[in-house]
């Protein structure tokens, strides 16, 4: 028990001293997670809107596939992306393996289905009369889409927050595609795993506290937006 208390107190001291290594790891984590969340929004929100609003071919099958992808293990994505970006593969020339870009690609693949499915579900909950009202008031297709997105805004924001929460805490993709290179691709989760292997728990506990704080903030935000969307 004293081990845990000592580690916790040392971790708090480390955080209070704004340790450079700690700041660096947190910065890398936030950078890749925010980037992948941004990319997932850019693709997932319009995709969710299109699937929800239009009668695309094989709509039910696409939704089933997206729901299946929600349960995709991070190591499977790691392997899959590795097969495309490793030295001798199709995108090997771009030299992406063990870079932050590789982590961002993998994490984006992980959360695009999350953003897409949650957006789809948020838009499905929106009353169909909004579309009809926008059209009869003379709106074009883009203006009508914006009306629907604005009405579904809280549900969509909740999907983005949930996606960010998923990537900030994942380890498989960061480890397999980033390689846990210090100062470059070392994220909070990969650093924690390494510190654990080395038996040095102070940094691991400090990172754990930060990760939990971020997760708590994300969940408070998620709860807020989910509450707003059901108003």
């Amino acid at each position, binding site marked *: 028990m004293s081990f845990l208390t000592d580690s916790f107190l040392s971790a708090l001291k480390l955080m209070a001293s704004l340790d450079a290594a700690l700041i660096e790891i947190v910065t890398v984590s936030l950078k890749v997670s925010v980037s992948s969340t941004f990319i997932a929004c850019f693709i997932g929100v319009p995709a969710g809107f299109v699937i929800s609003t239009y009668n695309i071919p094989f709509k039910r099958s696409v939704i089933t596939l997206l729901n299946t992808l929600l349960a995709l293990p991070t190591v499977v994505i790691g392997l899959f992306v590795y097969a495309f970006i490793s030295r001798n593969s199709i995108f090997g020339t771009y030299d992406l393996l063990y870079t932050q870009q590789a982590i961002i690609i993998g994490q984006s693949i992980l959360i695009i289905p999350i953003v897409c499915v949650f957006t789809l579900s948020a838009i499905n909950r929106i*009353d169909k*009369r*909004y579309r*009809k*009202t*926008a*059209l*009869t*008031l*003379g*709106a*074009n*297709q883009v*203006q009508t889409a914006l*009306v629907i997105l*604005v*009405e579904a805004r809280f549900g969509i924001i909740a999907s983005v927050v949930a996606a960010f929460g998923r990537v900030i805490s994942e380890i498989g993709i960061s480890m397999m595609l980033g390689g846990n290179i210090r100062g470059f691709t070392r994220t909070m989760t990969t650093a924690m795993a390494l510190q654990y292997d080395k038996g040095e728990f102070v940094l691991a506990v400090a990172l754990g506290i930060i990760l939990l704080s971020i997760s708590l903030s994300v969940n408070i935000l998620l709860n807020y937006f989910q509450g707003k969307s059901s108003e």
Partner: protein
Amino acid sequence: MILYSLKNIKKYYTGRTVLDISELDIHSGNIYTLSGPNGAGKTTFLNILSFLLMPSSGRLEFLDIPVKFNEKYLQQLRQTVVLVNQHPILFSTSVYKNIEFGLKVRKIPLKKRKKMIESALDLVDMKGFINADARHLSGGETRRIAIARAIACSPGALLLDEPTADLDLESRLTIENIIRQIHAQKNITIIFCTHDLSQASRLTSKNIYFLNGQIHDIYHENIFKGDLVASKPDEFYCKINEKILIPVQSTDKDKIKISIHPEKINIIDCKKKDSDVSLSYMGCVTHLGMEKDKIRAVIDIGISVSVLMEKSEYDLHMLRLNDSVKINFDVSGTTIL
């Protein structure tokens, strides 16, 4: 000037014909009412007139130009006609922004917008609500704002789908007055659905009656469904429920839909002995109203029956609200639909 011209317009849903109009012209600057039972095709008709729904076949002309149902062209047309739904929905923002939406898409300059919004709100007597949150309005207020939002767009035609349904009397009369004012001030063509015939007659003489998706010249009222039963070989009845039998002509169907002409329902003096009157029903007067030079009474005999009578007949029976009356039906007044 002819605003809409419809020729052989049909609309099918999963093989069922919901609208079948052989020919109809709608002239601009008039108020039209659409009436008929539920499922008669009124809302489908309004959706086609508002260019939100494409007919399955036929030719629709708007201001003498055939309507092409492609999205880009339709958007231009939709900027000239606005439909207000039966249960309108307001965007979850302020009243001001709701009304501003139609003006924004029409690229009305910012400076002009506020004046137009205030003028539209003034017309529906809701000027004090300009900054109110649209989500917190009552049903009647929502409809008035929805009408203001439509009017602000200065449409050539305003289509209203049952604008007074589910509203209390005060709100109904307010909406009626708004319709009158809009027509008087803006001379906009107004087409609206209603089940209230008194309201229709108060607002216009141009009524289009729908039944089973078609336009009928004869107005059918008191429409009921029931089973055909025969008491004697030549006496047939429509059994509406366990207690009510309405005399009808013979037919080969088992399940029938009938209409009862409101002027051919007899009110029987309760004080008189009426041994010769068979199948009469006691009921209660639930509604009384003037309709042009006649009196309309709604009598609840277990089903609500609308009776139309001359003023002299009304004076004779001295009907008052909640009075008990006895009525009976004549076979000549019923039509099998």
